[in-house]
């Protein structure tokens, strides 16, 4: 055990620099994860917010969670490969269907459901009285959404983005299977050559990065969410926990 830990420590001393060092690998990991979550937020947040505002599409919101949960992340990452290779063959400016592109597509697909559902649920759970009085004060629909509903829903929306981000960071290691770098490289390569040190080092780095992701979102929450609405304990809530706290959603009830 002691010898193992010494070797592990030595690994961290030996492997930090260079193109396969863990500084670069971590950066690759963050890049593809960040891009996927950002794309998911840009696509899903406005649509879900609008649907929540007009109180339509509850069935879609519920179905998206259920489908998202049933899809195996491993399968999605693997499926992205043949799909992106076909795309790369037919679309001129995409040169390679390997590596970044399939990883990004898969992570993007996995990032969508929590962002969508939490945004929708968050907007829907804003009290109609508040929206009504905003309307009475003469605010336009877009302003109601932007200045009243979204700030009030920000804790739930952000929880959705955090769930997405943590899930994406946790799944990004599988990108190593489709030719991408990132921290998964160490685990996947370690499996292949049965190198326990490399496997554990990779696992440690992946776990640390996902904890770091949680912490970063805790800080963001403190800055973005109005103080009165902040959750006391920004613990780890899986998406279902958020849905659980909002049982008042009428659309979620009749759509089994």
């Amino acid at each position, binding site marked *: 055990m002691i010898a*193992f830990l010494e070797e592990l420590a030595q690994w961290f001393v030996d492997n930090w620099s260079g193109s396969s060092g863990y500084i670069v690998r971590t950066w690759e990991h963050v890049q593809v994860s960040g891009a996927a979550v950002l794309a998911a937020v840009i696509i899903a947040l406005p649509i879900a917010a609008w649907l929540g505002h007009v109180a339509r599409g509850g069935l879609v919101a*519920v179905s998206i*969670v*259920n489908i998202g*949960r*049933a*899809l*195996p*992340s*491993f*399968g*999605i990452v*693997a*499926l992205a*490969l*043949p799909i992106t*290779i076909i795309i790369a063959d037919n679309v001129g400016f995409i040169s390679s269907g*390997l590596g970044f592109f399939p990883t990004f597509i898969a992570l993007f697909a996995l990032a969508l459901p929590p962002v969508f559902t939490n945004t929708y649920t968050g907007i829907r759970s804003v009290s109609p009285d508040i929206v009504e009085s905003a309307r009475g004060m003469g605010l336009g629909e877009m302003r109601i959404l932007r200045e009243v509903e979204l700030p009030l829903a920000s804790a739930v929306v952000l929880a959705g983005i955090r769930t997405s981000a*943590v899930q994406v*960071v*946790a*799944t990004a*290691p*599988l990108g190593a*299977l*489709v*030719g991408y770098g990132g921290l*998964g490289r160490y*685990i*996947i390569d*370690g*499996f292949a050559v049965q190198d*326990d040190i490399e*496997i*554990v080092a*990779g*696992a*440690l780095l*992946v*776990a640390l990065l*996902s*904890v770091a992701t*949680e912490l970063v979102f805790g800080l963001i929450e403190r800055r973005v969410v109005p103080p009165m609405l902040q959750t006391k304990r920004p*613990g*780890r809530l*899986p998406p*279902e*926990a958020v*849905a*659980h706290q909002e*049982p008042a959603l009428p659309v*979620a*009830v009749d*759509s*089994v």
Partner: protein
Amino acid sequence: MIVLAQGDSGPFIRWDWIFSHLDEVWDKVFEHLVLTFIALAAGMAISLVLTVVALRYRRSYGPITWVTGALYTIPSLALFAFLVPITGFSVLTAEIGLVSYTLLILVRNTVAGIDGVPADITEAAIAMGYDRRRMFWEIELPLALPVIIAGLRIAAVTTVGLVTVTALIGQGGVGFFILRGLGRFFSTEIVLGTALSVILAVAIDGALIALERALTPWAKTRERVA
């Protein structure tokens, strides 16, 4: 690196390949079901114990959710990777990981379900002379079943998906097809493995809904706890 040797120009799904490999498909589906079932059964047993502890000693609920929450947060691949040096490429490694991920969901729903039993019912039961144990098994647990099964459904669907990842540590059920398809770039196998995993998740979810209906015949209007 992946060698793009086979199937690169072939059709996306070769049905003839699937039909000529049905025996293997059934084997892997069965393996998938066994891995899922063991994980859920063990997870349910452990979380029932944790729930009893949490209800008996209220202060332990915080630490219990903290620990199960921490397990839930560790990325699945990382958790399997941590275990490989100890338990190797084995079913045990797969099951420890799979069970770990069910605990948070199951404990939280079981506690919430039992907490949600109306006080007038438990008071009536006390008045009728129920002791603590009978109260738990005959009153609280049955009335909490819809919420417990709601948790079990989430855990089941999540587990079915996670089982595919265990292909990387030599198990995997239908995840085996995904990994092999990826290795020789044969999209048919990737699609097959992914589709089977989704079908299994939906089927198990449906089976659990049926189980809930059978176990709670008194509930006419059922509340959905997502």
